[in-house]
């Protein structure tokens, strides 16, 4: 069926709503990569199996990631007339029990994460209230009230976890493709660009360039054809917001791209997905096919005469291929290394033609801005950073997952409210934002409002939204070393500062962590970091020194302790720590002696033991196993 007008779209919406809110029980399982990794497939299978075995009148469906990845597998249960309940940390066993319980009208409160009495339809600016007849599960907290979700504002993630990504009608039911309909029937190209410009939307892929302006450059550039690209390379370790959107809500990206293509005057687009994201690529492929079938992509979209095709290009998973000029080379089949800009892709991009590249999240924001207007969007956020940002909150934090929050939220709120603090009551030490080449922001700056400018001023960056929390047991020299190790391997190696400079910084960091560095090395490290940042060809080298520069700025004393006192204050760097046994505390139980892999510990039963430092490899097993806190580190 080809959708030709709003009426057709409205009809599909009704079908979609029926599928979202059927007249019988529907159990949805989060089947994003994160869910699958924790066993969601088995959960799905056992639910389906149990429903069939027991002959229950219920549906089982799939959905994307709700963001609370740590509590996966997540299962939500829709029952007409009741609140929707989201269960967490499910396993096949529990899933069977859940189904059995449902058949008997039971709620398993002990497994529930939260419940919902309504859903936000952000595109339509409505709250879809469920018609709840039975007030059950009252003591289960509401979705919008639990700490993890309370401060979130989902725009890019609006549909993830709330619909079946394989069902285009459900996307339409949640307001999908209505913005495109409006654009193609009522807005001129320039008006679309104006709207995006006025919204203040900035690129969510790293550099934060104003999106409307970028579109305008490409629209005004001479040369045909023009290309549109969605950057879904997402190479930052530990970042998976783009993957989640592509898996959980692929149509939002497609719709954004068609709107952008119309505004820019392009008829051909690419989605560049890394090979390591097979599910995401499949999901997009399916969505493209569906959209084409419905006449929302391809020839004569919405019967408007506008044509736009999207192809998928799969990259081999090099971090540097996320850099836009390297990405272009990679699509062209050349080796993925950056080239100097200018010329910018808007002027000379894919096959030397004007090209507009945006990140997955940037595209996903577009339909909402068109629907709700620039004014509404630009009211969220700070002076220069509008709207929301999606972060992946990970590290030493109680709640980990994908979080979408208004720009300007304080780090403190991210860590203590949404993240609910540091595990085991440890102290919060620093947070690393912006991916491997972002910077470490110390706990003293917890009141920093997160936006592009503030993060840059603090020596870090927004990047694509990585947020790694570190506790008091973290050695900052070690952290810098860890990130530089990553950028050293991921540098394309083309230019001298990045290829040679990172390697040398790492050598110095290694010496520092082994207590072999001199005080002058710190100066050399600082010079290297400064010059590599300044002199590199692309932003990989241009940002790679950030972990070094920020740890030097905020934690210089730690570096000095390593160099001058030959001590690692956090007791992490193995060469600078020593284990010994406190004779007073040791009961001579012999546990450590048994566990030490080097037979470095000796002592008679019931008499104080001791460690032979020459044999000790500092694995820390003795420290871990001692029940009397007798093993000491210094």
């Amino acid at each position, binding site marked *: 069926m080809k959708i030709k007008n709003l009426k057709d779209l409205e009809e599909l919406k009704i079908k979609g709503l029926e599928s979202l809110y059927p007249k019988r029980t529907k159990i949805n399982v989060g089947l994003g990569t994160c869910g699958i990794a924790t066993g969601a497939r088995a959960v799905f299978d056992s639910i389906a199996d149990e429903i069939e075995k027991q002959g229950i009148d219920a549906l089982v469906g799939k959905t994307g990631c709700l963001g609370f990845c740590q509590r996966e597998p997540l299962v939500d249960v829709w029952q007409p007339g009741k609140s929707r309940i989201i269960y967490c940390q499910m396993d096949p066993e529990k899933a069977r029990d859940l189904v059995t319980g449902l058949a008997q009208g039971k709620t398993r409160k002990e497994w529930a994460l939260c419940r919902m009495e309504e859903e936000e339809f952000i595109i339509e600016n409505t709250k879809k209230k469920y018609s709840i007849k039975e007030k059950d599960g009252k003591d289960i907290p509401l979705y919008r009230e639990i700490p993890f979700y309370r401060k979130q504002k989902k725009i890019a993630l609006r549909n993830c976890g709330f619909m079946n990504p394989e069902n285009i009608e459900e996307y339409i039911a949640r307001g999908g493709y209505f913005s495109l309909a409006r654009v193609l029937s009522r807005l001129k190209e320039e008006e679309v660009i104006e709207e995006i410009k006025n919204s203040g939307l900035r690129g969510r892929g790293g550099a934060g360039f104003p999106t409307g302006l970028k579109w305008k450059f490409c629209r005004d550039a001479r040369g045909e054809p023009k290309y549109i690209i969605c950057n879904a390379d997402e190479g930052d370790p530990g970042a998976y917001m783009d993957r989640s959107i592509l898996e959980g809500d692929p149509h939002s990206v497609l719709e954004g791209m068609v709107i952008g293509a119309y505004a820019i005057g392009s008829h051909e687009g690419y989605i560049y997905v890394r090979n390591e994201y097979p599910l995401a690529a499949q999901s997009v492929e399916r969505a493209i096919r569906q959209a084409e079938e419905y006449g929302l992509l391809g020839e004569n979209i919405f019967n408007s005469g506008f044509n736009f095709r999207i192809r998928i290009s799969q990259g081999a998973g*090099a971090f*540097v291929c996320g850099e836009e000029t390297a990405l272009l080379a990679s699509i062209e089949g050349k*080796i993925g*290394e950056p*080239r*100097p800009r*200018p010329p910018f892709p808007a002027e000379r991009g894919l096959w030397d033609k004007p090209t507009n590249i945006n990140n997955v999240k940037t595209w996903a924001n577009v339909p909402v801005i068109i629907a709700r207007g620039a004014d509404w969007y630009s009211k969220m956020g700070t002076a220069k950073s509008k709207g929301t940002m999606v972060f992946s909150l990970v590290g030493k934090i109680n709640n980990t997952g994908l979080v979408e929050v208004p720009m300007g939220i304080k780090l403190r709120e991210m860590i203590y409210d949404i993240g609910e603090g540091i595990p085991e009551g440890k102290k919060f030490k620093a947070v690393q934002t912006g991916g491997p080449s972002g910077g470490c922001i110390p706990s003293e700056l917890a009141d920093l409002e997160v936006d592009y400018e503030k993060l840059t001023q603090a020596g870090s960056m927004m990047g694509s939204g990585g947020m790694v929390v570190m506790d008091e047991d973290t050695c900052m020299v070690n952290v810098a070393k860890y990130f530089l190790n990553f950028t*050293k*391997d*991921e*540098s*394309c*190696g*083309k*230019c*001298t*500062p990045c*290829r*040679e*400079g*990172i*390697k*040398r910084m790492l*050598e110095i960091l290694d010496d520092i962590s082994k207590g072999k560095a001199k005080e002058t090395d710190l100066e*050399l490290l600082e*010079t*290297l970091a400064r*010059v590599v940042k*300044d*002199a*590199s*060809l692309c932003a990989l080298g241009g940002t790679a020194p950030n972990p070094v520069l920020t740890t030097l700025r905020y934690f210089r004393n730690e570096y000095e302790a390593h160099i001058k006192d030959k001590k690692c204050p956090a007791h992490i760097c193995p060469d600078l720590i020593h284990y010994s046994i406190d004779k007073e505390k040791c009961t001579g139980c012999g546990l450590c002696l048994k566990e030490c892999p080097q037979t470095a510990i000796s002592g008679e039963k019931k008499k104080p033991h001791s460690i032979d430092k020459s044999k000790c490899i500092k694995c820390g097993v003795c420290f871990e196993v001692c029940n009397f806190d007798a093993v000491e580190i210094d």
Partner: protein
Amino acid sequence: MLNLTIDGKKVSVEKGTTVLHAARKLGIEIPTLCYHEGVSPYGACRVCLVEVVKGIKTGLTTSCTCLAEEGMEVKSDSPRVLESRKLMVELLLARCPEAEKVKDLARKMGIEGVRFKREDKECILCGLCVRVCQEIIEASVIGFINRGANREVETPFQAQSDVCIGCGACSSVCPTEAIKIKEMFDKRILETWHTELELKSCKICGRYFVPKKELEHLKEKIELPEDIFEICTDCKRKSLTGKIGEIKTGAI
């Protein structure tokens, strides 16, 4: 014409001129390592860095790749430029302590010692050989392999190449003599590219003088009388001088 200033001096150049050439026009010397007139600029070695003032912001960029713009203000000798260039050369010198060209540059810049652990590589990864082979010879025998610090120039799969014509253009453009070519009687051996090529002997003097493959390649590319490929340059010169008599050419 575009007007710009470099170190406060005014210069006008045609559209499409690089800052490097604009500077040369003013007699301002900017060091280069990965740049060569004959091939496209690459921007890799970064020893040609200059500072370009854009409004209130200034940024470092490579003069070999940066095109001149109207009203552009360039600094080629600011402390920031000199410090960065110097560090580039020091980094390359630590990588290739024996490379004459790098040693020369280091001497000129007043680099006294290297503050990093020395390596013993010969290739500075300027990519000139790759570009010459691709753009001029159009053989694309070699390319970069591996990422980051492990980057190298190599043939595909680091194996003998069946497209190499043995012309040696890579070796003659290499600034560090990193590409080793040997001649042994009827063979040219390109050790670096794991490749051996048969040579052809001169019809007149009998000396082996050119890889057969190179001749085939040339024949395909340019139409020239057949016998021009049969005799070595020495004999060619002799027979030509004979023919032309007094006129001393030597340029053929």
